[in-house]
Every structure is written in structure tokens, then in C-alpha cells.
């Protein structure tokens, strides 16, 4: 008996020791990442596309970073920060002893330079190094579209390691914005040395250093051994451009790349069966929706909007058009975001209920009044991250609405024209499909941008609701997160009751990778971070 127990104990110890051994991260090796397109440039302030940011994610750091798998904020180049009682002054305390890849010191002046160079009106104060700002820079699009010009009043370096941002207005999402790629801290010496060529010679403080860029072919990065967050496990990371999805997957199967971005849905099935591959997935931080032309009287009665929400079979759309790579959306913000209201009960698929609601609201009469016999549904001509096929989704909705007696005409335009005409709320438009991919993981970035038509004429839905507007404004100005969560939950309830749009789906990102790749995680913001990735 004792012998048996000893044996069992020994096996037990070996088993767990073995497991611990197997999971111990190993250093060394080159990871090859296969992607669909090349970067446009590598200066974070001026880039707008994911392929550029995924390189920047590894070469630069921001003052504040997103946590590994969520949009929670954690210290980056700033170890801590204080917010004044009125929410207008943010003081960042910088990490000491951090150097850029070119050997220069990362200090408060580098922060003032990095952010200040995007300002149109440069209200900045350096502490020691009086860097000149480069002239004739292109427009910093993210800076403008995130309203930073209207948010930040001044930036001041008060000592070597302290920077103070003074805001023009209270803006709760400010910290989340500062964690975005465009706000990365760059080496001022390198920017001034390379001039406009800095976009192809990036120098930051990140876990990887830039080595080489062969356009449309590859970008090579190597480990930064002095990284403040610890030496990366990988020696090298190579980002290869392989435009064709099926070829990229073949490259993964033959073992020439380690991770395959955006595979064809049918290849995911093949990857499941391949013993050398595994899948990594993450719900996308996005929403695909159908909305109404709120400028037309036809869509003022909320019963009609509710009817349409009951008539669309979302599950069938996700199953057949997203090929299961999505999840039905009941809220406008995705479930990965803080503030998500899980108590919401979605409008179930119920054509009978929909018909009754239409009758109650005298939809037929109202349609006649508007001089219409059918309604139009504008559908995107292109695949978007939140919707793999706008036209097919349009056809599915057309068939669903036919079942409740509503005739739908599908309308589409070339993508640029579509976006332009949609914004004018053309009277010939009744319903339109569109969507949104989040920038900073803050609910404001969905709920204000998409639905607060009273705040901004550029809001695509142009839904104008006083109660909603109040909630959003209060949430923007609230200081504590608990307070904000409460307000956003209420905003989602209001959306559910009023149906200013019909939330269709959040897409699901699923990428195949080789089994030897360990600890690679997809991030909700779609950033690609290789610092803690290792190869078995």
C-alpha cells in the first residue's frame, strides 16, 4: 500500500513538474506573422490603418497602455497619474531610466514633443530640451477625429519626469484616448534627424526595434534587450505581406509563417482539423447595424422601428453570412467593453409581433402618406470589419421584411459615394446599413459617436433625443468609472426601448496559428503585441 502511495505521489509530482516545465516560456527564435497588406507608414501620429499600427504597437509605447486582453488602462511610460478635482488637469509621472532605441533619453520633453507636434496651436512648454517642431507635416487624422484639438489646451513639462496636460473641457475618455496608437511617444532626435523619412525609420521605446522594411514584402523587427518591461522572448519578428487569403493560409500550412491574419472562413474549418495548427479568437470591438432615416416622418413612430427589430432574423444572418464568425448584438457596444449592459433583453425574432406593431402604428397608411409603395435599404458594396458582406445582409433583411408585408428595394453605391450620400440623409434613403469599429475601448466612442445626433451633425444616425443626449454628456463629464458605467447602462436601456438603430452583430476575429506559438493574444483594439509571445 505504502509503495503504491509513494508511486502515485511520485507520478503526481512528475506530472505537475512536467506541466510547469512545459509551460515555462522559452527565449529565442523568429516569429513570422503573415498579413494581408503592407503598412502605410510607421509614424504613429499620422497613420490610420491597422497594418501600420500593428508595427507601431511593438516599436513604441504610450504614457498609458491597454491591459493584455482588455481595454483596461495600465501604466506605460507613465508609472502613475493624478487628475485634478475639476477633471481639467492631468499630471503624469514618467518612468525613469527609459531610453529610446537610438540611445536618447525618454523624458518629459520627449512627451511634450511627441504630443505637441500634432497640435495645430502649439501651447507647450519644454523643461530642458527646446525641440523645434517639424514644419509642413501632414494632417494628424486621429488627433483631429478624436477631437484632441478641442480637448487639450496645453502641455507642460514641469520637471525631467513630470508632464502636465491642461484640458479645455472635462473629457472622461481622455485617458483612454492617450492610450491609443497615435499618442505614442517618439524619439524627438530621430524625428528631427530623419524628417519625413521618420515614417520609414521609426524610433520608440517599445519591446522591439525596427530593422528593415522592404515595401509590400516584409518588415523586420528585433528584440530590444533593454526594454523597461523586460526582455522580449522572441529574437526577431517578421511581418510578411501575403495579400491573397488562401495563399497566406497555405504558407501557414507549409510552416513558412507562424500566424495567419484574416483567413477565409472555410480555411478555419481546415485549420481545426490540422494537428499542427490551433486557433486564437477574440470578439471584435465593433458593431454592424441597420438604422433609419430619422429625418423622415415615416420613421418617427417607435412602434414601427420596434416592429422592424422583431422582423429581422439576426441569428440566421450571423450563421449564414458571418459563417458563424460573429455574435448577435443586443447592445450597440460589444460585450468586451466595460459598461456593457447584459441585463438588456433583445427584441426577439417574431414576425407575428412585428406585423401587429405595424398595424397598430398604421404603417401602411403612413407609407401611402409619404407617397411610397416600398422602402429602400441602403447596403454597403464592400466588406467591412463589422460586416463581411453588406449586400448579402441586405438581401436577408429584404426577405425577412417581405414576410411581414414590407417591400424593400436594395440600394447601393460605390463605397465613397455611399458614405457621402448617407451623411446627407438623402430622402430616398429609408434604412441604411453601416457599422463602427471602436478606437479606444471607451463606451463613449460607440454611444456618442453613433447616436448622439444632438451633439454633432456628423453622427451618422442623426438620432436626436434629449434624454439620451443628457446621459451621454453627463457620462463624458463624470469623473469616476462607476458613475459612468451607471449612465451608460441607462443609455443602453433607452436604445433598447427607442430602437434608433437595430444592432445586428459583432464580428468575431479568429486566426489560425502554429502550435509552437505560445501566449499570442488578440486584443479588442486589434493591436498586435508580441512582447510576451514565445516559441515552443
Amino acid at each position, binding site marked *: 500500500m505504502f509503495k503504491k502511495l509513494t508511486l502515485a505521489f511520485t507520478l503526481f509530482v512528475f506530472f505537475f513538474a512536467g506541466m510547469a516545465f512545459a509551460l515555462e516560456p522559452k527565449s529565442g527564435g523568429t516569429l513570422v506573422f503573415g498579413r494581408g497588406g503592407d503598412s502605410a507608414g510607421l509614424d504613429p501620429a*499620422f497613420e490610420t490603418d491597422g497594418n501600420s499600427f500593428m508595427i507601431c504597437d511593438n516599436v513604441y509605447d504610450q504614457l498609458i497602455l491597454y491591459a493584455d486582453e482588455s481595454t483596461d488602462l495600465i501604466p506605460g511610460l507613465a508609472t502613475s497619474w493624478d487628475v485634478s478635482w475639476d477633471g481639467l488637469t492631468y499630471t503624469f509621472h514618467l518612468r525613469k531610466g527609459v531610453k529610446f532605441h537610438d540611445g536618447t533619453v525618454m523624458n518629459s520633453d520627449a512627451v511634450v514633443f511627441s504630443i505637441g507636434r500634432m497640435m495645430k496651436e502649439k501651447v507647450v512648454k519644454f523643461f530642458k530640451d527646446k525641440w523645434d517642431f517639424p514644419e509642413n507635416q501632414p494632417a494628424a*487624422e486621429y488627433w483631429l477625429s478624436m477631437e484632441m484639438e478641442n480637448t487639450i489646451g496645453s502641455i507642460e513639462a514641469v520637471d525631467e519626469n513630470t508632464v502636465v496636460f491642461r484640458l479645455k473641457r472635462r473629457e472622461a475618455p481622455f485617458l483612454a484616448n492617450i492610450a491609443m496608437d497615435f499618442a505614442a511617444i517618439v524619439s524627438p532626435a530621430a524625428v528631427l534627424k530623419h524628417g519625413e523619412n521618420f515614417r520609414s525609420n521609426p524610433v520608440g521605446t517599445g519591446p522591439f526595434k525596427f530593422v528593415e522594411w522592404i*515595401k509590400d514584402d516584409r518588415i523586420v523587427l528585433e528584440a530590444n534587450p533593454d526594454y523597461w518591461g523586460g526582455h522580449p522572448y522572441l529574437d526577431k519578428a517578421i511581418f*510578411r505581406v501575403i495579400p*491573397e487569403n488562401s495563399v497566406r493560409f497555405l*504558407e501557414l500550412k507549409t510552416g513558412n509563417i507562424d500566424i495567419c491574419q484574416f483567413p477565409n472562413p472555410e480555411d478555419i474549418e481546415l485549420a481545426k482539423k490540422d494537428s499542427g495548427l490551433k486557433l486564437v479568437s477574440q470578439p471584435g470591438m465593433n458593431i454592424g447595424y441597420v438604422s433609419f432615416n430619422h429625418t423622415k416622418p415615416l420613421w418617427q413612430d417607435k412602434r414601427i422601428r420596434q416592429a422592424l427589430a422583431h422582423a429581422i432574423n439576426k441569428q440566421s444572418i450571423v450563421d449564414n453570412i458571418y459563417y458563424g464568425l460573429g455574435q448577435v448584438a443586443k447592445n450597440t457596444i460589444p460585450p468586451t467593453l466595460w459598461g456593457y449592459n447584459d441585463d438588456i433583453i433583445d427584441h426577439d425574432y417574431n414576425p407575428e409581433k412585428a406585423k401587429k406593431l405595424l398595424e397598430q402604428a398604421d404603417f401602411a397608411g403612413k407609407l401611402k402618406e409619404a407617397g411610397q409603395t416600398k422602402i429602400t435599404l441602403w447596403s454597403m458594396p464592400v466588406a467591412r470589419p463589422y460586416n463581411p458582406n453588406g449586400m448579402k445582409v441586405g438581401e436577408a433583411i429584404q426577405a425577412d421584411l417581405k414576410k411581414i408585408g414590407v417591400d424593400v428595394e436594395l440600394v447601393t453605391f460605390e463605397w*465613397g459615394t455611399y*458614405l457621402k450620400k448617407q451623411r446627407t440623409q438623402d430622402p430616398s434613403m429609408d434604412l441604411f446599413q453601416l457599422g463602427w469599429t471602436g478606437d479606444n475601448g471607451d463606451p463613449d466612442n460607440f454611444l456618442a459617436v453613433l447616436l448622439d445626433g444632438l451633439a454633432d*451633425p456628423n453622427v451618422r444616425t442623426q438620432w436626436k433625443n434629449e434624454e439620451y443626449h443628457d446621459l451621454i454628456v453627463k457620462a463624458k463629464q463624470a469623473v469616476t468609472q462607476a458613475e459612468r458605467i451607471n449612465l451608460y447602462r441607462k443609455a443602453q436601456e433607452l436604445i433598447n426601448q427607442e430602437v434608433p438603430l437595430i444592432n445586428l452583430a459583432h464580428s468575431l476575429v479568429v486566426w489560425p496559428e502554429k502550435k509552437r506559438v505560445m501566449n499570442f493574444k488578440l486584443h479588442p483594439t486589434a493591436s498586435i503585441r508580441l512582447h510576451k509571445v514565445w516559441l515552443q
Partner: protein
Amino acid sequence: MAKFIFHRFLSLIPTILGISILIFFMVHLIPGDPAEMMLGERASEQSLKELRKDLGLDKPLYVQYGLFLSRMIKGDLGRALKTNEKITTEIIARFPATLELSIAAIIIATVFGMLAGIISATRQYSIFDYVSMVFSLIGVSMPIFWLGLVLMIIFSLNLGWLPLSGRLSYHISVESITNLYILDSILTQNWEGFKDAVWHIIMPAFTLSTIPMAIIARITRSSMLEVLRQDYIRTAKAKGLSPFTVYFKHGLKNALIPVITIIGLQFGILMGGAILTETIFAWPGIGKWILDAVYARDFNAVQGGTMVVAATFVFINMMVDILYAWVNPRIKMG
């Protein structure tokens, strides 16, 4: 001869000018606004206005064309809207890849196409003739996309003989002089790089060569057949000359003229038409780059890229004309 070449050069000027007008206005006729495309869902009226101003799109079309032309004369094609990089820099980075691929493809097409054509003509109605003509029909009509994938699955995935895509393996580097990797690796005596570059080019070059190969084979065959029916060939045969001398010295040289024309034309087409092959084989060339620019409505890049491709096409045609006159002295020069 010198006068002929000079005249041909002069005729390039109105051609290029015509092309520039055509390209400029065609590009601007495509529906879609680059600013809308760049800002996508997040576009606001103000940001659009600012971006259009930054990009110079707020000026009238004729002013934009004037600017385009005056810059082009100075050798400046402007900046790509998306990357803000000089178009010339972007093209220089990619053109050699396309050139290398096209040269390899046209060499394969010419060697095998002409060989098949000659043998078919000299053995008309033989099994070889039928087989090679059927293959050339398949070659013309085979979708490149499909062919590329099939080749990849057979030769890379299953047999493991050839690399799947790209220009070089990631662990190999070639010092860049002309950016034609095969040439550069020879110049720097980097034999490992040479082998890797040749290995990588075989499949895409073969895929790209199928259509021109088939066309060259058919033209060579019919041209040879016509020549072989001539009296002087019969005379040569009657004189007791060896078949090789009859077919190659007397026959082929005279049959070559339409073949040269078609090779030149096909080469020109390859330079701009390698989009599909470049896309499938992840070949970082200019075709794929122009296609992306069209999707992004990057007017400057489309104009600049197309201009370069068109100019190359015109230039190759001029070279063909000169070669033509040289091969066939019966053609009047001038």
C-alpha cells in the same frame, strides 16, 4: 538608322502627352472621393474639407491637371495620398520586382513558345503539333489565379520543391544594387541568395508566362508555316541543305518578324498586367500597388503608376520597331 531612331523618339512626346491626359481624366472619372475613402465611417464635413484641401483636391480639374503635367516634366509625380511618400520613391521600390518577374516570364514564354511553334510547323499535323496547339489553347484560356494556386498546392504544399510565395526566404538577404535580386546576387557573388531568388521566381514566372507562351507558339507556327511554303525554301531543300539550315537559317529568320512584334507587345502587357500573379504569389511589384491605389482612390498613385507602366509599354514598342527595322532591312527607315 540614326534618323529612324530619332524620329521614333520624337513621336514619343505626343504619345506620352496623350496618355497623360487620358489617364488623368479617366482617374478622375472613377466615382469616389479619396478623402471619403481615407476617413471612412469617421468622416465629418470639416475633416473632409480639411483633408481635400491638404490633398489639393479642392482645385478645379484643369488646374490639377496643369500641376500634374508641370510636375511630371520635372520628373516629379507627386505624393501618394495614403502614405504621403513620393510616387517616384514608391515606384522605384517596386518596379524592379515587376521587371524581374516580367523578364523571367518573357524568357520562358519565348524559349518554349518558339520551340513549340517551330516543331509544330515543321511537323504539321503530327501528334506533337496537335498536342502543343491544344496546350497553347489551354494556356491562353487558363485562369491565372487558379493555375497559380494549383501549382502552389502541387509543387510547394505536396512536393515541397519550390517556395510558395514571396521573392526571397526571410533568412536570406541580398545586397540591393539594382533591386533585381537575381542580378544583384550575381553581382555580389551571393550564390545562396542567387539560388533562393531563382527558386522563388520559377513558379510565378511560369504562371505569368502561360498566356504569352501560348500566343508566341501559335504565331511562330503560323508564320513558319507560311514561310516554309515559299519557293526559296523548296529551292534550299532541293539544293540538299541540312534541315537545320533550311528551317533555322532560311525559315526562322524570315518568320521572325511577326514573332518579335508579338514578343514585344506581350512583354509590355506583362509589365502592367502582372497584377494577378503578383497578388497570388505575394510578389511586391507595381501591379498590385496600382490596384490597391485604385481601390483607395489614391489619384496621385494611380496616375503616377499608370504613367510609368504606359511609358514603359510605349518604350518597349519603340525598341521593337527599331529591332524590326534591324532584322528586316526591307522595311524603309524613316
